[in-house]
């Protein structure tokens, strides 16, 4: 096999047995790699009705097809499992350096089964695989965990691990790698914690075999050159400001989530922007492996209360801990971000859950005695304190750690949870971006921008600008973006680079270069049509997992605020998400019936029967 290693490492944590399996070439091609492979194995091996935190659930680390190749941003992996936050499956994405190193061990997938009796970590150095005791690291924060394991293994080992939040099975717990990068969403950290698996350390020295290395290298070099020219011309917004450039943009469009998504305009938008981050806190931009963009921010905050150093914050984190909580203090947002990385928490779900608690507190729906302090919008210190408590599941933090849906339901008002399928919204109020509304409602993993970020077109004009307030053509575009994001995730590339440089910059966004790269890597016979069908196949198989887990059309919905409370001000004033106008057409285009269930014909077309 070329492009893929074609090998899976299976680790049974209950028995300590480790085995190596080959991958069927047809499965390899049909499901691309990364997310697609992960979904295929999860679907085949895990009963969709299992308790996500039971030994019967499996945890899959999946490096992408182009991960560890010369293709720029080939640095990503997906964590695939059944989610304790949503009860659906999830595939949570992260970059950094761990995924490349993982693929260089000679395996594409690690599949973890069962549950270790005592805390352990896995050490993989090429073919050397060892399950080691981790009692001495259990309870430690993420950074210290990494340092200890690196000292015990190899100075060049790359590490993914959980913090206290994952150990305590928090449904909003993340898996951190390279200290600051997170497979953050859907509680993947809790699944890892439930298996008593504290960390995975990898050191790989193998090169990924390529079918047409010269052609691949030439095209990869060309893309790198294009990005470098944009950077040199001062045109790379992501290099200059990171994703933190976004708050003033989404504020201008009127979709910057503010006060738990009551409104989409925030008076403090400029104060929490990339400009301020660069001027006050930036040490330097930081890149994942093989990335010419470097959107990451290495930052330091010198402040008696909010001081710290680390990576971030990114836009999503600024939206959740900032505007959604009514906080215009960027130092506090950075601090909340650093703490999430240390504790192993998802910044989006944690921030939006705190915002939910703030709204309910202000409405008198949560008594102050439960929280132990006032919790008003705009209280930056309270936000930071809640993050700490959530990570340790102490006091009121125990409820925050369970996400907004469980928290709001605990007090009898689930409608204050800004979530879809119980997963918190990213930082775009969908009332002002209709396609995002459809995406959140239908996403197989719950609300997520990473499932098919149509905001690229609705807000950011990449590759072409769509009117965010219009529903015209949105079902088709959302479906298409879901499919191409499935391709990018399965390829193990970063969407920031891929959508802009590897797809045609036209309204149709054809997968031209990415197809060529995959073909050069594998020689497996990919063309645009087979690739797009593979994206559709991945998405549809995910849906089948949900169907078997008991999800239906009733779950493809949004909170009442989004469907019935018109946006109170800003450019999207008066708008709600017109889900009913988009959903039937979306189902039809996906080949799903009126209940959101893939039809037999569709399954046959995709070879999934």
């Amino acid at each position: 096999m070329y492009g893929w290693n074609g090998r899976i490492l299976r680790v049974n944590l209950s028995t300590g047995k480790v085995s190596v399996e080959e991958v069927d070439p047809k499965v390899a091609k049909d499901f691309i790699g990364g997310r697609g492979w992960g979904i295929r194995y999860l679907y085949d091996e895990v009963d969709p009705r299992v308790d996500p935190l039971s030994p019967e659930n499996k945890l899959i680390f999946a490096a992408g097809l182009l991960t560890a190749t010369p293709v720029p941003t080939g640095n990503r992996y997906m964590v695939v499992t059944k989610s304790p936050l949503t009860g659906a499956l999830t595939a949570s994405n992260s970059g950094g350096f761990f995924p490349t190193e993982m693929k260089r061990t000679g395996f594409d997938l690690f599949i973890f089964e069962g549950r270790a009796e005592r805390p352990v970590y896995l050490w993989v150095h090429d073919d050397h695989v060892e399950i080691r005791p981790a009692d001495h690291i259990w309870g430690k924060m993420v950074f210290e965990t990494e340092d200890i394991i690196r000292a015990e293994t190899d100075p060049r080992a790359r590490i993914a691990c959980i913090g206290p939040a994952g150990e305590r099975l928090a449904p909003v717990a993340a898996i951190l790698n390279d200290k600051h990068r997170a497979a953050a969403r859907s509680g993947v950290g809790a699944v890892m914690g439930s298996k008593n698996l504290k960390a995975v350390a990898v050191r790989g020295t193998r090169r990924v075999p390529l079918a047409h290395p010269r052609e691949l290298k030439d095209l990869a070099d060309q893309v790198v050159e294009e990005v470098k020219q944009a950077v040199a011309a001062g045109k790379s917004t992501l290099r200059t400001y990171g994703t933190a450039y976004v708050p003033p943009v989404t504020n201008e469009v009127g979709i910057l989530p503010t006060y738990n998504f009551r409104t989409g305009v925030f008076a403090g938008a400029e104060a929490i922007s990339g400009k301020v981050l660069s001027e006050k806190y930036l040490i330097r931009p930081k890149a994942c492996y093989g990335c010419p963009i470097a959107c990451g921010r290495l930052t330091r905050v010198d402040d008696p209360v909010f001081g710290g150093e680390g990576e971030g914050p990114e836009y999503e984190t600024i939206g959740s801990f900032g505007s959604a909580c009514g906080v215009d203090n960027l130092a506090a947002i950075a601090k909340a971000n650093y703490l999430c990385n240390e504790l192993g928490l998802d910044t989006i779900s944690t921030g939006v859950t705190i915002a939910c608690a703030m709204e309910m507190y202000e409405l008198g729906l949560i008594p102050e005695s439960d929280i132990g302090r006032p919790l008003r919008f705009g209280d930056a210190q309270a936000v930071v304190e809640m993050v700490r408590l959530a990570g340790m599941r102490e006091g009121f933090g125990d409820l925050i750690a369970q996400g907004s849906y469980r928290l709001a339901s605990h007090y009898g008002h689930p409608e204050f949870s800004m979530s879809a399928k119980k997963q918190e919204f990213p930082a775009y109020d969908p009332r002002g971006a209709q396609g995002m509304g459809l995406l959140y409602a239908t996403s197989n993993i719950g609300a997520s921008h990473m499932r098919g970020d149509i905001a690229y077109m609705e807000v950011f004009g990449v590759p072409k600008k769509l009117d965010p307030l219009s529903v015209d053509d949105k079902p088709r575009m959302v479906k298409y973006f879901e499919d191409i994001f499935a391709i990018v995730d399965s390829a193990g590339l970063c969407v920031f680079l891929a959508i802009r440089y590897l797809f045609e910059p036209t309204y149709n966004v054809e997968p031209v270069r990415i197809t060529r790269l995959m073909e050069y890597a594998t020689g497996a016979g990919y063309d645009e049509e087979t690739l797009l069908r593979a994206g559709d196949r991945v998405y549809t198989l995910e849906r089948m997992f949900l169907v078997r887990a008991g999800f239906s059309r009733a779950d493809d919905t949004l909170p009442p605020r989004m469907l019935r409370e018109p946006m109170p001000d800003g450019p999207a004033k008066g708008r709600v998400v017109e889900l009913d106008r988009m959903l039937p057409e979306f189902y039809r285009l996906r080949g799903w019936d009126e209940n959101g269930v893939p039809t037999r014909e569709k399954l046959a077309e995709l070879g999934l029967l």
Partner: protein
Amino acid sequence: MRIWIKLLATYQKYLPPDCSSSAYEMEVPPDARVEDILAQLPVPLDESVVLVNGRTPQPGQTLQEGDVLCLFPAVAGG
């Protein structure tokens, strides 16, 4: 009449030197069309997102007193 020109992200480098916020005022003829004003601005239009009062302008749309014409580079975001 007067309108506001607002420049975000890396386009802030095109703001007048004395401008301390993201926007500056501009005198334009009554009923000026969006396209006409854009042609006078120093930004690379084919790589830009253009908004009028936060919304997507229609082709041929004219501007009103106090409108905010906002531009930022087309980049994928968060």
